[in-house]
């Protein structure tokens, strides 16, 4: 098995991101999956994007323009 390499757009581990740790993942080209060097996350790009969307859910105002201060 060849070494893992940086994947597309420096995807961070979405599970580590959930606890606010920025951890770039490596990409295993043979299996077509990202994996984390810190926790045990692994998964294809779709899974990374799914958990990233979950991470953003906490920002209820992420799409709101607030002007009343």
């Amino acid at each position, binding site marked *: 098995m060849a070494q893992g*390499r940086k994947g597309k757009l*420096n995807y961070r581990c979405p599970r580590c991101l959930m606890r606010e740790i920025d951890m770039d993942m490596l990409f295993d080209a043979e299996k077509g999956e990202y994996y984390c060097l810190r926790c045990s996350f692994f998964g294809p790009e779709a899974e990374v994007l799914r958990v990233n969307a979950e991470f953003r859910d906490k920002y209820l105002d*992420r799409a709101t323009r*607030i002007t009343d*201060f």
Partner: protein
Amino acid sequence: MTTFYLNVIHRPEMVPEYLQKDAEEGKAEDVTRSDVIRESLDIFRTQQRVAHDNDIRTTIQMTYASLFNEEAVAIAKADHEKYGDEIGSTFLGLQCAQFREKFASKELAIWLFSMEDKRRIVDEVFGKFAEVFGFLPTSTGSYYMDAELVNYIKDRYPHVKAAVATCWEEGPKAYHNANNSWYTLLDGGPWNPWIPSRRNIHCPASDADDDIGIVAIPHLSRDLMAVFDGPGSYYGTHPQNILRGMVYEGREIPYFMNIVDQYRAMAKYNRGYAYNMMFVGPGWMSKSGRWEADYDFLLKSYEDGMAYYGQLKKEGKAVDLTMSEFADAYRQDRAYSQPEVTLWKDILYGSKRQQFWFADPSMRFCLDMNLGGAMIDLRPYAAKLIRPCGVGTKHIQDASYPFLVQSLFRAGYFTHYAGEGAVKSCKFGHAGEEVDLCACRTQASFSEDGDTRVVTLDPVEIEFETFTIGVQSIFRLSEGTGEIEITRKIVSSTDPSAEVSIDEYITACYGTTEYPEDLTGVKLKLKGKSGKESIDYEYRCRGAAIDGIESAEAIVPQVDTRLSMRPDAGDVTGYFREGMAFSPMYTLGIKKTVQGTGELRTWLRVEKAS
């Protein structure tokens, strides 16, 4: 009259952190890699163009490495000529072949060098700058500029008037966020520009003698609520930070404008003055993308942010100044005693939560309305701690200003199983029942009464088993006194005959991180009409109380601070409580009992102990 000042700062970094790291994958380190330098310069040029397209002037902070690059120097000179941009100097971006040759070090943070090296580097950087431009810079900066470093710069180069001096609340949280590999341990400073003390850069100067001689600018204007409890590099006026925090939907980032507008609103609390800064290094706009965002999105976020600044300028709502111009403007009518205050509201999580922030030469503190106005952060600036950092000093990387209260690092109201956390609040009791205001969410409003800033909380209800009381808290901050006046008023009671105890307390410690420090040597004292009590802290859970209290105080020699409480008058009881090793805290309190309605008024003060 309201003025919203804006500083936009760019730096031609030849070997930007993230860009270099990506380029190095699978290769040996090479700080002269030409493709990285070329890309970085392209990004710098793009940033300058985007600012100028929006009619925003910038401060170009030349890195040491860029002083050896003819193209970077030429861009700076041309933009200075054409747009009036200021050419300043930064101690970021030191690393390059020339630096390695002269200093034989891979260290990248100016504040972490030994004092001797700091002096040599300052002279080398400023000397090279003068050689290239024919004049010396009047603005400088880094992620952190310790007082010892700035004192040296002012001694040798007295014309320097501004510096990017700290990153607001980059401390243990930033360290953890970067997988424990980012050594900006710099918590505890003001969130907006200030004139620092010559003893400690975090502390606003008390007077002209204490004035270090520059105006300090925090790196970025950050979300005061989100960054107090989260990574600094997610929530601020740095568009790519916001991408890093993933605060967007599709490719739109209204959050950036919301932060800017909340900073603009600070004029309401600061006599018409408000401020914002943006400072993005080229590494954050890497052409290969970063933070799950492609280059187009990175660029769009920058363009959108700058366009908003440009729009505000066009509408006459923002004044773009260079750093040195801002320093002059800031000093024009700023009394040393004038506090920086703001009532920050949540613009991220959709709650109505508010936090009140205050910083003056005596202290920095934060009140959290989600916890009934409890104090969740307290930094004793009055101590003006001389606390050098860097190699050869006691603290090396830990450049944070110590706290007495930091409720997120030291539990606060909620603790697991036993003990107490660091927080200042008030408890109301009746017949064995006790309710802490920390459990009473509320909202606050701000007003001014001459030189007194007033934070008035909406009344909350406290339900006892057989009756209910309404309680209002009012905080009064009289400029230059170093004291907080706190009134807890029972404004209503469904049983006017019921007796209620009001117990104003502060549970505190000291430190700069989440981990406990040794409290041995702390003195707890009471002084009142009926006598005195005093103990040296030994983790033995002791306590004392005296009636007719005049003052309850803790002397914390480790941070050279005297923390004290006093009542207005009358028959009130003061007490202290020693903690234990499982709860390394000390508590001071003042309590009284009222029937029906009534109030307890106390003052909290921090002073230098020695």
